[in-house]
């Protein structure tokens, strides 16, 4: 009886060991694969990377639906999470179809149907290498600005006088509130390596702390009772403190 019991216990231990080893290997492979690649540009409407990885069923219907062959499915062994759609703007950018066929084709909602207007897509953000941008170097280029589907909003041209010539410099500036990350600018950029390129927001965008008060912006209300460390107790009576900082009234009221 005891020998039988021992044998049984050994069997259980062996089975557990095999199962645990297998599961660890499997988990490791999953981690390797699903590790969100920092440079992956997803089709319009894609959920945040982690949700996207969970929801995407890897069917490639978005790839089928794209009329410009922009999208590709990541192959096994590549850098991107296996089987998920992505695009490389320098090869083929997203041409922002107004009917968003890729999103419409998505059966799972990994490309969220909440995206109603293609101009609200935020696939990435264009950033300019100021040292190698022809315009910033002083030449007249502005190709990215002219090609931008949202020119005047996503990319604007600013003029800047320069000392050695009477011709002004015209340099492009990207605005994150309008840039869709379509990458048409990156495709169009005439430099050998694109001087403007689209990157995922989290790779390029900073975030200032909430405690910074930009007193000169129109919609920032400056109050004395700003306490970032301690949120106001819900039961506290409304503060009777003055709404504006003393000494600032003359600016807000336009008098001087």
């Amino acid at each position, binding site marked *: 009886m005891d020998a039988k019991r021992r044998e049984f216990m050994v069997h259980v231990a062996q089975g557990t060991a095999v*199962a645990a080893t297998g599961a660890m290997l499997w*988990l490791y492979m999953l*981690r390797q694969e*699903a590790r969100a690649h920092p440079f992956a540009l997803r089709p319009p409407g894609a959920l945040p990377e982690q949700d996207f990885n*969970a929801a995407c*069923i890897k069917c*490639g*219907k978005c790839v089928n639906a794209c009329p410009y062959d922009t999208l590709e499915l990541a*192959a*096994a062994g590549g850098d991107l999470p296996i089987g998920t759609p992505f695009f490389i703007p320098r090869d083929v950018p997203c041409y922002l179809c107004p009917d968003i066929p890729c999103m419409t084709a998505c059966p799972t909602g990994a490309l969220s149907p909440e995206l109603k207007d293609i101009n609200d897509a935020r696939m990435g953000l264009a950033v300019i290498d100021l040292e190698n941008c022809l315009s910033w170097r002083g030449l007249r280029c502005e190709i990215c600005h002219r090609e931008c589907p949202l020119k005047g909003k996503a990319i604007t041209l600013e003029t800047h006088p320069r000392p050695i010539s009477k011709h002004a410099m015209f340099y492009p500036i990207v605005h994150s509130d309008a840039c869709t990350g379509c990458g048409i600018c990156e495709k169009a950029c005439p430099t050998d390596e694109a001087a403007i390129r689209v990157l995922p927001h989290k790779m390029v965008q900073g975030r200032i702390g909430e405690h910074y008060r930009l007193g000169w912006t129109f919609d920032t209300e400056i109050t004395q009772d700003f306490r970032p460390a301690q949120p106001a107790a819900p039961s506290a009576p409304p503060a009777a403190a003055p709404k504006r900082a003393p000494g600032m009234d003359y600016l807000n009221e336009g008098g001087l």
Partner: protein
Amino acid sequence: MNAGEELRQEALASIEKIRRRTFAQRLWSWRYILLRRICQFGILLMFFGTAHWGWQVAKDVPLLTGNLSAAKFIGLIPLADPFAVLQIVLTGHVLQTEVLLGAAIVFTFYLLAGGRVYCAWVCPVNLVTDLAAWLRMRLDIRPIFHINRSVRYLMLAAALVLSALTGVAAFEWVSPIGMMHREIIFGLGLGFIALLAIFLFDLLILKNGWCGHLCPLGAFWSVVGRHTAQLRVRFDASTCTHCGECARVCPEPQVLNLKRIEAAGFVYSGECSNCGRCSPLCPEGSLAFDWRPLIRAHNARSGKAGSRVN
């Protein structure tokens, strides 16, 4: 001659019948295998043609978009892999109706046809593993070790548990099946290395190693078709001579336990993939595809006829 010897002679006579088939008879006995290849390649071709040559049934109505994970037929009928959908649901993601409907359609189909019909008639990896099994038989390669065929159910459970734990569909992210059909339809990657590994494993290490022992998708479909499959191989015990040739060609020989299937009247196991190897080979016609509701009546009739002869 005693009864045992008589039975032995009967069985040997059956084997002799198989050996003496003419070439035409041999070809005819491969009919299901040929049909399966047409079906497997046809499905891949429809996906490929739609993706690369813009095949459509009408203007702007593509024939078959997507792949075996999720697809849309003639722009109307959604299709989806219920196992993939189940994994995604377990990650906690709320799915859209389209993919749920597609999974329900596919699920219902296999519920009635027999779950593992997918394995033999649709799955592209079957092309690789069948080739390995055929070569293995040709080269007469002995197994290195055996593993329990129920390991696949452990793999199935692990896929579901890991999906819930990691938040990504655990099998879909490592599936050689997914790699194969994606890479055929959407372009090559390194997935063929995984397939090569499966091929070598099946050829040199374990017979029917992947499909018959490990694949969690096959395990899923085994469970699905178990009690509801309507298309099954009926077994007519009154004509069987127990020659065993069916079990020799069967990739899942445990489903051909003659005592048990005699009691049921048909190959009832969910692990039978309706691959159509045994039935055309059977020299006595004891095994044949039939609709489940008709099987009992058929066997009762033939049992009576058989006893009259004896």
